[in-house]
């Protein structure tokens, strides 16, 4: 009943190909955006904005990037952390070398640089597949982190190898990095970047390039036979995915933590983003957001839930329970719906469509 599309007629191709062809979707998205842009900044505490929403947004972007590569093009990569580090360190070098350059361009350039690195490390994908490729991307993971940690130039010769974000403004008076930026401004900036890039991604996967990726994912040999060039498809997926991940890394370093060392992007970060993509749903833009929300928020909620309901619990035990519950939930979700939370939403939509007459 809620999702009935009867009566919504498409009279033009344009209407048929709209991103959200159904009225209910349009309303839903409008409501979500209104909440994100209006309600949350107005009512949420600083803690909610800077410790929950910011990492959620940054991780959504990173998950989106990995989803393009893994979910749409089928190339398994465990180098996400290193590509985030590329974005962060490139952005740091660019913005300290050209302090006048607007931070948006800095981020775009950092993303472009990461894309180039991604393509380079994507080259083995032309020959290596599956888990073997995953472990090959680990070479990128370990090498890049080692390099950022080892070569002082990347940190402008800081004695400890930590970079801290210099104060930068997008528009005069709208500072988004550095200590003077308020959580609300940071939130708006991150939200803006994520919305624009998510829209772009949504359109990309519906276009020709997205369909070539999916053809490669579903069976690369068959795709090659029907005339898709695997090299162009795979490397473009690596490039665009790395671009997204690079921008996410720059956001992480500049807008979220404002100070970062190379080790913050270690292999665990790669796994974290991989979880998001798989739990959220492979090959789904919405899934990237759901997965990020799950992996970012769940540990924090588990950690605080007993205190919120008045149970005093030993910190260590709570820490262990957090791990156990997270692990168990990952398995339970995979068993319940191997295609991720995005698929659950889809099923839910189907049900809503028929409700209250399920047969």
């Amino acid at each position, binding site marked *: 009943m809620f999702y009935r599309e009867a009566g919504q007629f498409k009279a033009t191709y344009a209407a048929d190909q709209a991103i959200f062809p159904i009225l209910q979707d349009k309303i839903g998205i409008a409501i979500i955006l209104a909440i994100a842009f209006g309600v949350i900044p107005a009512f949420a505490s600083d803690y909610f904005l800077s410790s929950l929403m910011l990492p959620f947004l940054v991780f959504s972007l990173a998950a989106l990037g990995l989803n393009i590569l893994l979910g749409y093009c089928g190339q398994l990569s465990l180098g996400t952390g290193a590509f985030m580090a590329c974005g962060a360190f490139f952005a740091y070098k660019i913005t300290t070398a050209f302090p006048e350059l607007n931070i948006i361009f800095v981020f775009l350039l950092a993303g472009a640089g990461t894309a180039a690195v991604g393509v380079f490390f994507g080259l083995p994908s032309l020959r290596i597949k599956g888990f073997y490729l995953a472990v090959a991307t680990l070479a990128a993971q370990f090498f890049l982190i080692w390099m950022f940690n080892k070569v002082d130039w990347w940190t402008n010769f800081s*004695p400890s190898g*930590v970079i801290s974000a210099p104060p930068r403004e997008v528009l005069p008076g709208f500072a988004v990095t*550095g200590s003077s930026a308020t959580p609300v401004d940071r939130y708006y900036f991150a939200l803006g970047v994520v919305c624009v890039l998510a829209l772009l991604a949504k359109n990309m996967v519906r276009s020709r390039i997205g369909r070539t990726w999916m053809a490669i994912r579903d069976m690369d040999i068959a795709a090659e036979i029907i005339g898709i060039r695997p090299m162009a498809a795979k490397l473009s997926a690596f490039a665009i995915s790395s671009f997204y991940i690079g921008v996410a890394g720059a956001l992480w370093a500049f807008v979220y933590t404002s100070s970062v*060392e190379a080790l913050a992007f270690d292999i665990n970060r790669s796994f974290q983003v991989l979880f998001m993509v798989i739990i959220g749903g492979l090959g789904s833009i919405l899934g990237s957001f759901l997965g990020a929300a799950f992996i970012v928020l769940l540990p924090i909620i588990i950690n605080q*839930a007993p205190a919120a309901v008045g149970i005093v619990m030993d910190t260590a035990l709570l*820490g262990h329970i957090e791990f156990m519950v997270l692990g168990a939930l990952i398995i339970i979700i995979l068993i*319940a719906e191997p295609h991720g939370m995005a698929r*659950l939403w889809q099923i839910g939509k189907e049900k809503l469509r028929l409700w209250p007459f399920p047969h």
Partner: protein
Amino acid sequence: MNFKRLTALAVATVIGAGAFWASQPAVAQAEDEMFIPLMVYRTGPYAPNGIPLADAFQDYLKVLNERDGGINGVKMTWEECETQYNNDRGVECYERLKNNGPTGAAAFFPFSTGITYALIERATNDKIPVFSMGYGRADASDGRVFPYVFTSPTTYWAQADAMINYIAQQEGGYGDLDGKKIALVYHDSAYGKEPIKTLELLAEEHGFKLTLHPVSHPGLEQKSTWLQIGRRVKPDWTLMWGWGVMNATAIKEASAVGYPMDRFIGVWWSGSEVDVRPAGDQAIGYKAGNFHGVGQDFGVVQDILTHVYAKGQGTGPEDQVGEVLYNRGLINMFIITEAIRTAMGRYGDKALTGEQVRWGFENLNIDQATLERAGFDGMMKPIQLSCTDHEGGGQLLVQQWNGSEWEVVSDWIEPNGDLIRGLYEASAEQYANEKGIALDRCTS
């Protein structure tokens, strides 16, 4: 998955999230209670080191409340937050706890160099002191540039200098360092890299040759490093900036290549019982720096045993009381509570804000009488801080493991204060320059 279960799941999630949101505003507390946030790591790869520290924090606060009724009648309250020694969890903990209690958090002490770096700007902005005792950003000892960061009683740079001083003493004087070889084995992270610049400078000045041997996290596999040191470089002395499992492994591997243990000196984070016990007899003779005494023969430790453990309220196992990291946790809490006490002298006996506690830190003067009153006599040196000097001392002890306990084998070793201060100032001024911070805070 059927629809009913799905709906139930969704409803549960919404309720959970709602409860979570609602729980956010801290419950209003009485004015005569002062909130101390405890950032701890009781899980994860560094838990063995984090547990005794965390237990000591609570025990000291408990003994203050039990024995003295708090500080000047103001009771201490606290809440632990698990950071897993992980920078982003640390930031989350900071944001979660900073507004708790009637006046917000008194001071943060993350016991992680990485988290300290992540907090410096945030805390300065929020006007909450960050107390990084013997870790963190060394040049934050310059109070002109880092008004909210305190490194007392010593930093990695001062320690590196004091260790070279100790080596010079052993060799017969600074003149005898010429031509000697010193190796540095370090955790390849922000923490481990801190002393390199100081050591390089000293190497140039005194003519010894410094070789660097990074060990990547977590340091389970150090065969190459120790073959290099033990069989190739054969240095006269080896210094180690290690943490966690890296320490015990390094001691085992050093012994396996036959490196003499009494010429192997660890930083104070490489000199606790958990680092040497697993290595068994191989660790006998191993040395480590420290800035406080070890054992139970101190007034405060006895007080904790009688007022807390005897009543069955101890936080951890009783046999860890008096261990290196436990005593360090006590000293950490002692300095913070003394800063609060100092600040109360000016602002009155009530819960204080972070800004007021900062004033207490800058005017902190822990003299011999204070040490005796609080039972820290013999455990640490007096400390006096000022607006410019946030370190106040920098002395080092060298301790040696005899197979069952740590023995102090040196007098207090003074670092070269002028040299180190010059390094702090140069580095802090560069930071101030980058960030556009004026340097006249303490003069105007």
